Each structure stands twice: as structure tokens, then as C-alpha cells.
């Protein structure tokens, strides 16, 4: 392990790493000079680690010094250090283009599908290197499910949508087992009651919220360990959003969930921890409560108080 600081942290310490490191943030906060945002952003580059509590003991995901480049010149995220705990919901917030989605897509190597995209640094899932040569992206993505911003059911029946993953991976030996998996996943996604009479109708015929729950059912049908959600409710109306948020809360029992969201209220409602990204830098990570009530960094404070973003 390349980072000495990790060993210094014991447990879920609520202390900042060291007072000297977080000093710039605190200093800025004291002066509360909003005119000096550019200087603060410049100082992000000097920040060796995010303020707050980025590191955990025995995390599900252990990521250090992660940078993503879209081509030779364009770097999307810079040296992100972050641990993601087991069975927690962690929310990633920040203004548009801050790199939160890019970071999320590193976790199951979805960035592989973008040509010219290069990821450096250390990303471990249960101690296994995600970007190692021996790591199989197919297997990885079966272990780490993903739900996207816009509901994207396949142009197939509801049943076939949910059965897609189990069929691909050969998880069911016969029709009865497959039926069971489909019913189970739809039930877990809170959709079974609504669609049980029309499993053979196309999934694209459902309402937006139902489609998104269908996508969640599709993701959990292969019993993943982690579910990544990229702004899963931004295309939905408030009622559908509420249903999905409740669902996320129940799913926490069985899965680790990373959710990127545009809505600070949503992050506050459903997550245990919150990570704030700004222009490709991870600025602050902490208990959701702390981030929203007592942010340490000036940029975080400006964002949650609505001064920009």
C-alpha cells in the first residue's frame, strides 16, 4: 500500500487527517471571502487528501490516487483517494462536469468502452485490483451492477429484460429457476405487483419510474455485491423519485450502493456518507450529516448553500 496515511487512521475517526493539511480550507472558511474562489480552486491542487473522512477500515472499495484521462491533454479527475464501506449508501455530489460520474464509471470499468480513456492509480474491490490484467471486466460488471441516468430497458419484454443477466451468465439451470430469479428481482425492486400480469409486454411500454425500477431489477437479478447509480432519478417525476429513494434504502441491507446525484436533498435523504467533487478533485468526504450541517471546506459550503452549482 502506497499511502502511509491509511495506517494512521483507525476506525471511523471523525478527526481531519491533520490540522496542517486541512488548514487552507479552514482558513478560507474563517475569512468567508467569496470573491476568492479561483484561489481556492488553485489550492485544491495542493490538497494531498480530501478533507473530512475519506478512508475507512476494511472497505468494499479502496481507491487511491485515481486519475482519469480522456486523451493526452484532457484530464477528467485528479488523484482521488476514497474508500467505500460495505452496505453503505455513499452519495457523490458536485456541480456539472466535476468528475463524479467519471469516478463512478471507473468502479466497474465502464470507462473501458470509451476510446482513448485511460485510468491510473489504485482501485481495489475486496482487495482485488479492478484494473489488473487478470481482472475480467465481464465478471467484474456482474459483481458490480449499474443503473443509469436515463432508464434504458432493452427493447424486449419485461421478463426478458430481467432474465437478460442470468441468461448471459448461466445463473439459472432451468425455466423454473429463471422464473424464480425474475420474480425475486422484480419483488426486490418493488415492481412485481405492478407488472406481474404483463411480464411478456415490452419493457419500453412502462412509465419512466417503472422503467427505472425495471433497470434496478435487471441489475440485482445477477446478485451483484455493489450497485452503482448514475443520477437514477434525474429523469423522473417527484413521486417516482420518492419510490426509488425508498427502494434504495431497502436495498442497502444487501448491497453496497454508490449514487451520483444532482440533488443535495436526495443525497441528504438517502446516503450515509457524502463525497463532494469539484472540477475533477475530490474535495471533502464525510458523514452526510456533517457535510450538510458543518462542511469543512469553503467550496463544499458554497455548494451546499447554493452559491454555485
Amino acid at each position, binding site marked *: 500500500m502506497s499511502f502511509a496515511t491509511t495506517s494512521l487512521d483507525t476506525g471511523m475517526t471523525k478527526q481531519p487527517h491533520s490540522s496542517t493539511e486541512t488548514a487552507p480550507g479552514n482558513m478560507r472558511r474563517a475569512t468567508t471571502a467569496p470573491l476568492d474562489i479561483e484561489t481556492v480552486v488553485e489550492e485544491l491542487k495542493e490538497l494531498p487528501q480530501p478533507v473530512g473522512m475519506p478512508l475507512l477500515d476494511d472497505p468494499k472499495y479502496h481507491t487511491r490516487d485515481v486519475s482519469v484521462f480522456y486523451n493526452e491533454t484532457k484530464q477528467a479527475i485528479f488523484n482521488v483517494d476514497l474508500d467505500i464501506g460495505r452496505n453503505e449508501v455513499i452519495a457523490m455530489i458536485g456541480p456539472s462536469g466535476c468528475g463524479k460520474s467519471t469516478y463512478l464509471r471507473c468502479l466497474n470499468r465502464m470507462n473501458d468502452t470509451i476510446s482513448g480513456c485511460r485510468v491510473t492509480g489504485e482501485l481495489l474491490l475486496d482487495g482485488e485490483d479492478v484494473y489488473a490484467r487478470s481482472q*475480467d471486466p*465481464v*465478471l467484474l460488471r*456482474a*459483481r458490480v451492477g449499474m443503473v443509469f441516468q436515463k432508464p434504458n430497458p432493452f427493447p424486449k419484454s419485461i421478463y426478458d429484460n430481467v432474465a437478460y443477466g442470468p441468461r*448471459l*451468465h*448461466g*445463473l439459472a439451470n432451468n425455466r423454473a429457476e429463471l422464473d424464480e430469479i425474475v420474480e425475486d428481482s422484480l419483488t426486490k425492486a418493488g415492481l412485481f405487483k405492478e407488472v406481474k400480469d404483463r411480464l411478456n409486454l415490452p419493457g419500453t411500454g412502462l412509465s419512466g419510474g417503472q422503467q427505472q425500477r425495471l433497470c434496478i431489477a435487471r441489475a440485482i437479478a*445477477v446478485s451483484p455485491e455493489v450497485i452503482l447509480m448514475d443520477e437514477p432519478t434525474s429523469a423522473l417525476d417527484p413521486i417516482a423519485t420518492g419510490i426509488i429513494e425508498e427502494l434504495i434504502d431497502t436495498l442497502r441491507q444487501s448491497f453496497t450502493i454508490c449514487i451520483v446525484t444532482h440533488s443535495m436533498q436526495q443525497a441528504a435523504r438517502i446516503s450515509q456518507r457524502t463525497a463532494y467533487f469539484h472540477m475533477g478533485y475530490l474535495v471533502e468526504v464525510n458523514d452526510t450529516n456533517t457535510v450538510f450541517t458543518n462542511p469543512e471546506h469553503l467550496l463544499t459550503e458554497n455548494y451546499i448553500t447554493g452559491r454555485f452549482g
Partner: protein
Amino acid sequence: MNKTTATIRAGLARRYARERRFRRFGLGAIIVSMLFLFILLFTIFSQGVSGFSQTFIKLDVVLDEATLGVGPGATGEQLRNAGFAKAISQSLYTLFPDVSSRSDKRNLRALMSSNAPYRLMGIVMDDPSLLGQTYSGWFLADDDIDTYLKGHVDRSLPETDRRLKDQTLGWIDRLEAEGRIEKRFNTEFFTNNDSREPEQAGILGALMGSFFTMLVTLLLSFPIGVAAAIYLEEFAPKDNWFVDLIEVNINNLAAVPSIVFGLLGLAVFIQLFGVPRSTPLVGGLVLTLMTLPTIIIASRAALKAVPPSIREAALGMGASRVQTVFHHTLPLAMPGILTGTIIGMAQALGETAPLLMIGMIAFILSTPEGITDPATVLPVQVFLWSDSPERAFTEKTSAAIIVLLGFLILMNLLAVLFRKKFERRW
């Protein structure tokens, strides 16, 4: 590792094998397609390159008054009737003094292409001072000789199965030994019209025919196509049955078989309106109708790519809609429109079938000089030659195809260049 992961891992090898198979199949499809292209071009080029050269025989022609019947200072009219054929024959007899019987002499004269006297006449008319002198020059050999020297005649066949008899072969051997026979680049291929004699056949007439036909097509289809595109893209009301009808028609016409346009040309332009048959005018009219959909569709795409903000800016300055289009939208869309036009013209240049219907398949001996002269075009010339039984026409056909492909590649390169140079991303 839990049970699910283990199950998935177990199936991975099989799935990756299938992935590789699929991938190989796709790559195979591309390789096969490229291979076809390579074989096609290779066949044409390997056959066609020899079509640009032709066998010539060097003769020393005595241009004295006794042979020609005219002396120095002869007028053009006198020269036209002078005995140049006799002079050519005489020079052959001098080369082979041992040939005496009438039939042998006829065979000897058959070494030369029939246009040798006319070539000689042309040379003397350009330089009358040659009269009374001896002129040494290269003259076209007959196509049978040419075919033999290009290696297409098997000498080991029994004499009766060959077009060239032993006697002629002997003469050729002697000419070769004296260095009087050789293959040279055939400029006449580019300066002659069609001919029944393969060695004299050239593509000038077809090239001029293609030029005039393309001229008519361009002059008609470009303005009409652009005007139609502007109307449909900038002015046409949405959800109007008439406009919908036009759009359906354009899209459908782009996919109607070309031969149907030929039928239209025959029935409407020639039979009904009395446009003269076999002319670049009627050919151009038919090709205009065929090219219009291509130009309209490309122009509309180019106009659509101009962002609405530019139109709004112009309209906001108080310009009328027509002024907006002609001052702003159209100039910005022009590169795309020109690219589409060039591609449409390239299609028209290669088109054959409809032109067969309207009589542009005739055997034309004179170079067309305008859009109402009977003419043929390059692809039809290819078709005509490919139908000829003589072996020598095969290489002519390939050579004509090379010229045609050369023009098409040039046009396409121009289109690509246009696209590259003026391409703009909004």
C-alpha cells in the same frame, strides 16, 4: 468468492470463445469485401495497362511522284486523292522483296492497320516538304499482330487453328530482328473515335459525349436541386400534404431502378417532346432526373446543419427570409451542397442502363461537337467494346474502364477534399 461469482467464472471461457468467433466472422467479412475489391481492380488493371500500348511497325515510305501521283507543291485537294495506300504497300514490298504472289502480297499488306495511309496523308499535309523524300516513321500494326506480340496467341497450335499463319509469323520475326516492330504508348487511344478495328479504336468521342452529357446534367440538376432543397428545408410549411408528397417522391425516386428513368426518357422526352435521340441533351435530361434526388437530399442535410441561431440573427437584423437564406444560410451550406453535387455527378458519369434506352448506344464515328450531336458516353463505350468478339477489344475495354475509374476517383477525391477543407462543426 460466492456461488454466483463461481458460476459466472465457470462460463467465461465458453463465452469468450464465442466472442472470438463472432469477431473473427466480422473481420472475415471485411477481409472478403476488401479482397473482392482488390481482385476486381487487379483484374481490370492487369488487363487494361496493355490497352494503352499498341504495336507499331517502322516503315520507310518513299514519297515520290511515281507512287503518289503528285509531286512537290501539290494542293490539299490533290493530296487527298494521292496514292498513299500504294506508298505504304510499296514500302512493305521493299522490306520483303521475296514476296511475289498476289495472295502473299495481300497477306503482307494485312500486317498494317487500315488507317496507315490516312496517317501518312496527315503527316504529309502537315509538312508538304516531305514530298519527294523518303519518310521513316512508325505506323499502327493490325490488331492480330498486336494480340500475338502481347502473348495471347499460342504458336504451338496447328496452323489452321490460328488467325496468324506461319508465313505472317515469319515476317513478324524478321521485323523483330530488324528492330522495326515494337509496342509503344498509343496516343491514338485518346485522339480517335470508336472504330471497328480494335487497334484504331479510341475514346475521344465517348469522352466528349460524357463531357457534354455531364454539362447538361450539371447545369440543370444543380440549380434545380438546390432550389428544391432550399424550399423544402427553409420555406415549406410543416405538415402539409403537398410537401409530404414531394418528400415521399424524392426518397422514392432515389431508389427507383435507373432503367425506369430510361423508359421515361424514351417515352416522354423522345417520343412525346421530340428531343433528338442519342444526343447528350436527352441523356443529360434523363441523368438530371436521376441525379436530382441525390443533390436534393445532400443539400437539405447541408442546410439543416447550419444552426438556427444564424438564421435568427439575420432575421433579427430585419432581413427577409429570402435574404437570410441567400446571404447567410446558403453560403454556409455550400461546401456540403457541392460535395453532394460532385457525388451525384460521379454517379451520373458511371450510369449506363438508362442511356441504352435513349439510343446513346449507337456506333458513333465522329466526335460530337455539341449537345445535339449523336454521341455515346464512356460507360456505354465500355459496354459496347465488352460485347465485341475480338480479343483485342478486351484490353481496350479495360483501358477505357481505367480512364473512367480515374475520373471517378478524381471526382471523389475532390468531394473528400471539399468536405475536409470546409467541414465545420457547430
